[in-house]
């Protein structure tokens, strides 16, 4: 069966597998999580692939040891478990240790937001942006499509330090197929509008593009894919003409996520735009019914957003 290259993890691993041929210092460590493309990688590089089992704490610690030996390491697991189960290992051995030791560890976290919609709140991951953003030295990457995710692999290998890579679990339409993601900038302006600019990340960038179609000419769309060190001055330049800015994320809001990042930029860059925050209120959602239902329940589906943004 052909590997679906519109799924972020598949595109990333395919690129990584190509690069592992040239670079014998790349190591891949999975916490018993797979992908179609991973089967080939395991076959090609049995000496540089390790499945640690369902043991995320050990996964991060082993990646640390490998990184201290000079390997560029990828830790791979399911989003809520690879981010929050080993949070102390990430804090001590990646965030803290990387301040005094060169190391390159990349956490590939699959199932951002409510990708695993019907699996319920244990599998929803709405905290990761804020808990990772608070860690010093941690780069947080949140792509909206497979092409952007694949492009990040080359950047990750060339850039020292710990990185958290937040991937959607589902196949998503292409945005960066014909575009090069600028990792020095950390965002891309996809649409310019007259009225309100939506700054979105991950899967929500697609919703933002749909809202822009509904309100032609009025809505600008910025895809933010680096959520800690994007180029603030460049972002301020894009936002300068807008009276309103809306942040949109499949994550808890009001606690350090994309919304906080943007409000800091508005403040620091002295921009007059009013900010509206769209995302999940801080409570766990036990509803069944799929992703669209979950989005509707908090007003971040295309219809609700088009209404909210048209009216205010």
């Amino acid at each position, binding site marked *: 069966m052909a590997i679906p290259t519109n799924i972020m993890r598949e595109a990333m691993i395919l690129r990584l597998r190509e690069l592992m041929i040239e670079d014998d210092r790349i190591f891949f460590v999975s916490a018993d999580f797979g992908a179609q493309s991973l089967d080939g990688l395991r076959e090609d590089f049995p000496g540089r692939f390790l499945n640690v089992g369902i043991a995320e704490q050990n996964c991060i610690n082993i990646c640390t040891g490998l990184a*201290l030996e000079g390997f560029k390491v990828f830790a791979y697991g399911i989003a809520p478990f690879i981010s929050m189960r080993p949070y102390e290992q990430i804090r001590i051995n990646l965030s803290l240790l990387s301040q005094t030791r060169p190391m390159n560890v990349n956490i590939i976290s699959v199932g951002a937001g409510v990708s695993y919609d019907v699996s319920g709140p244990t599998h929803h991951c709405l905290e990761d942006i804020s808990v990772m953003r608070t860690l010093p030295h941690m780069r947080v990457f949140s792509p909206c499509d497979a092409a952007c995710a694949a492009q990040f692999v080359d950047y990750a290998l060339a850039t020292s330090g710990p990185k958290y890579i937040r991937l959607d679990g589902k196949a998503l339409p292409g945005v960066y197929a014909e575009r090069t993601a600028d990792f020095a900038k950390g965002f891309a302006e996809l649409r310019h509008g007259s009225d309100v600019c939506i700054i979105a990340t991950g899967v929500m960038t697609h919703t933002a593009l749909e809202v822009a179609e509904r309100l032609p000419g009025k809505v600008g769309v910025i895809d933010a894919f680096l959520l800690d060190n994007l180029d603030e001055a460049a972002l301020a330049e894009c936002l300068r003409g807008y009276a309103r800015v809306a942040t949109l994320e499949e994550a808890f809001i009001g606690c350090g996520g994309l919304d906080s990042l943007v409000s800091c930029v508005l403040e620091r860059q002295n921009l007059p735009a009013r900010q509206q925050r769209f995302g999940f209120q801080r409570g766990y959602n036990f509803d069944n019914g799929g992703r669209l239902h979950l989005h509707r329940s908090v007003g971040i589906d295309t219809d609700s957003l088009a209404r909210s943004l048209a009216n205010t």
Partner: protein
Amino acid sequence: MDITAMKEKSRWVWRETLKIHKFCPESRIASSLSCVEILVALYYGGVLNFDAKQPFSEDRDRLIISKGHGSISYYPILADLGFIAKKELDAPGSLDSKLKAIPDTLIEGYETINGSLGHGIGVGIGMALGLKAKGSERKVFVLVGDGELNEGSMWEAIMLAGHHKLDNLCVIVDKNNLCMLDYCRNIVDLEPIEAKFQAFGWDSVTVDGHDEQAVAETLTAFKTRKAGSRSLVVVAHTVKGRGVKSLEVDSLCHIKSLKPDAIDELLKADELSHAQTRLGEGA
């Protein structure tokens, strides 16, 4: 170094450790005194390959001190061997010194951060795998406390190392029998520790952790084993607060600090007994 010289070195390390504690009473003296002879055996007993001038030399054996807070006794060794300047021992805890109550990676010789417990074996596995992938013959040693074995992350690591028969990994358990609030056996009884490791596929050796020669011989034998063996755990029986009677008999000794006068008395008593021993030898 022969056994007499190692014993003399241990005595010096013991004395210096007490002096560090006098400067910096927040340091954990009792758990630092249980591993003096283990550290002396590692560095002076011909076990570790190291180069103090190049602390990250590819050719070094890796030592992770997972029970980081209980390794103040490592400071004098690092100064003695030239990893850090001798003057560092003059004022630990002060603004001018890099020596803190809990060690960190600004101190040459410390491979990793270990103020938080339970990380050493997993990180050690990563290093052991990395060394193998690079074709290196160097070994990884991890010094852990027996109380530290309460951390679940340790057992994730122990299971995996055993499964993969990582024969370049050696864990040394400083079995001083105490956690912070009580004897380990009253909190979570892991006895016999050897059998727990064996059940997960490890080889085990039990030694007297205050016998430098026995520790050095065990660890040297590990280094020269033939490939294709298993991970090794060395359970070193020790006494927490070794050499300080008030600590040795106190189940809460982990959190006890010694008063400056008490330290002066201990050092004086040690000098006296040493002089008497010398005299005895002379006669």
